[in-house]
């Protein structure tokens, strides 16, 4: 099982140092494996460690203890610069608040992600960005800045940006939480469809019923995070 896992975490702990006091442990996870091409939904109450877990898998932050392997690579063992490069090429990240660069157009925001990796040759970046945005229904919005796009359109640009370097793993942190229900359903449907078609391994933090329904597996943080379990039972 673990041999075929796209993502494998073992005995991962994350604690944040506090001034003059004992470090605050926010995550204590025994084991988590995500099969390649699967769609996993992560849910839990606010502060249960969902975003911390995504950041650990993305290599944005490092665990206090434990191992994290993505596609066979131990990301914890990598230097920061190599981890950045690994993330650029292997992990797509969709944020709750889109986090598009305001000064760049939709096309440029997607191209920006390609600048950080060496996956797509520079001369093909604009074409690929255009193709991705067209696939997500934004062919008429390529030159628009984020401020000129609706929230749903902004999130679709963010999804295109996450897929820009064809990463095998896509992480999404409540991608529809900032959208109204109708738009959220539309964006989620297109997001799940694209990930399915491209056989991405998707780890999605969401409480959306549509997401839960479309997932191969739903994990509750209260069961996964031993810190959460102990604080929840207290």
């Amino acid at each position, binding site marked *: 099982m673990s041999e075929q896992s796209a993502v494998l975490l073992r005995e991962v702990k994350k604690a944040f140092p506090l001034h003059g006091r004992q470090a605050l442990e926010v995550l204590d996870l025994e084991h988590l494996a995500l099969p390649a091409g699967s769609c996993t939904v992560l849910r839990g109450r606010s502060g249960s460690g969902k975003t911390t877990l995504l*950041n650990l898998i993305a290599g944005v932050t490092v665990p206090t203890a434990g191992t994290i392997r993505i596609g066979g690579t131990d990301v914890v063992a990598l230097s920061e610069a190599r981890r950045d490069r690994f993330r650029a090429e292997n992990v797509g990240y969709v*944020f709750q608040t889109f986090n598009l660069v305001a000064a760049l157009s939709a096309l440029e925001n997607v191209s920006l992600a390609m*600048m950080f990796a060496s996956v797509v040759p520079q001369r093909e970046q604009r074409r690929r960005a255009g193709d991705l945005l067209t696939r997500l229904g934004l062919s008429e919005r390529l030159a628009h800045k984020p401020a000129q796009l609706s929230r749903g359109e902004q999130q679709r640009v963010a999804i295109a940006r996450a897929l820009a370097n064809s990463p095998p793993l896509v992480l999404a942190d409540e991608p529809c939480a900032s959208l109204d229900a109708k738009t959220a359903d539309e964006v989620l449907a297109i997001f799940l469809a694209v990930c399915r078609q491209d056989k991405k391994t998707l780890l999605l933090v969401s409480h959306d019923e549509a997401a839960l329904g479309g997932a191969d597996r739903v994990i509750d943080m209260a069961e996964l995070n031993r810190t959460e379990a102990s604080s929840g039972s207290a």
Partner: protein
Amino acid sequence: MTILTVALKYLRGRLVATTLTAVSIALGVSLVVASVLLARGIKDGFIAGATDYNLVVGAKGSPTQLVLGVVFRMDLATPNIEDTIYQSLHQDPRVETAVPIGVGDAFRGFRYVATNSAYFAAFPWRRKTFALAAGKFFADDPPSEPAYEAVLGAEAARSTGLQIGDRFYEGEEMAEYPLTVVGILRPTHSADDRAIFFSLPSYWGMNEVARGMAVKPLTAVLIRPKRMSDLPSLNRELNISADTQAVLPSAVLLTIFNMMAVAENVLKMILAIVGIIVLLYVFVAMYSATMERRREIATMRALGARRATVFGIILAESAGLATVGGVVGLLAGHAIAYLAGLVLGQSGLVTNPFLFNPFEPVVLVSVILLGTLAGLLPAVLAYRTEVAENLAPLS
């Protein structure tokens, strides 16, 4: 996309702030460039105007007043000397060229300068050449038959609008002796552009006192010796005389430049302060931009941007700002120097602000380096941006 294109997009993204910062830099740079160009132009103007002759002979008094009054026409003329001094110097075997000068009043602010044809002669040692744009040079008329012909300097002709054949005079008392324009000079980029030249006999004929004098008056004589080794003896003899002084224009120039050096030192201090202000402008602009953009920087890091990449984007922005401000400032500096040159030209100083100065690339490179330096701390802030901390969902 490259670091440079992202940096340029960011600069365009906040166009108003970018423009204001670039204008601030340009103002500072233009001030530096204009000051240096003008200082250089003024010095060049002095050197160009003063180096053709080795001695200026005039009445006893201030050497600086003599040179400024006779050569640059920036000061009141010194008292007169007798024409016989010119005659004896003209005959002196040690003298190659002696040119008599009579500085008179002015017509609409343009000084009357009486001389003879030697003043315009193209000697091989002369740096300045006189060429006519129109008409002819006035004749060396005999004292008994003054021709009252005038040759106008280029600026004097342009400003007064006088043309060949026009007759003019200043003041009712001179109406009896009008001058006729017979020639207009091409620009020489010296004080001569603002002069109205005519013959000494005309000068004496127009002056009631001079008309009655047996020995005619002059303001000065310009001397070029045959051999430089004769210069000290000529200088000594003319200074021993109770009536005359001989002045080396180069020595007066040194005095003037020494006086200017004090002003230049003050100017250097002001320019240093301007440099610091420019540095602060770029720093404040880039610091606030970086602080506003921490979330975007964190996002780029989350997308895989290395710390060095976001560091490079901020530095490229600073350098871009400084480059735009620097280039615009260089051009504006020339424009300011030109306008200031026009104003200074009215007081007799003529400069050429269009001349490229070798210090300009140094200024431009310095501004770019300073601008980049000002972006260093904001770039370090970007470099150190904590990703997880700055990606926390907005409440």
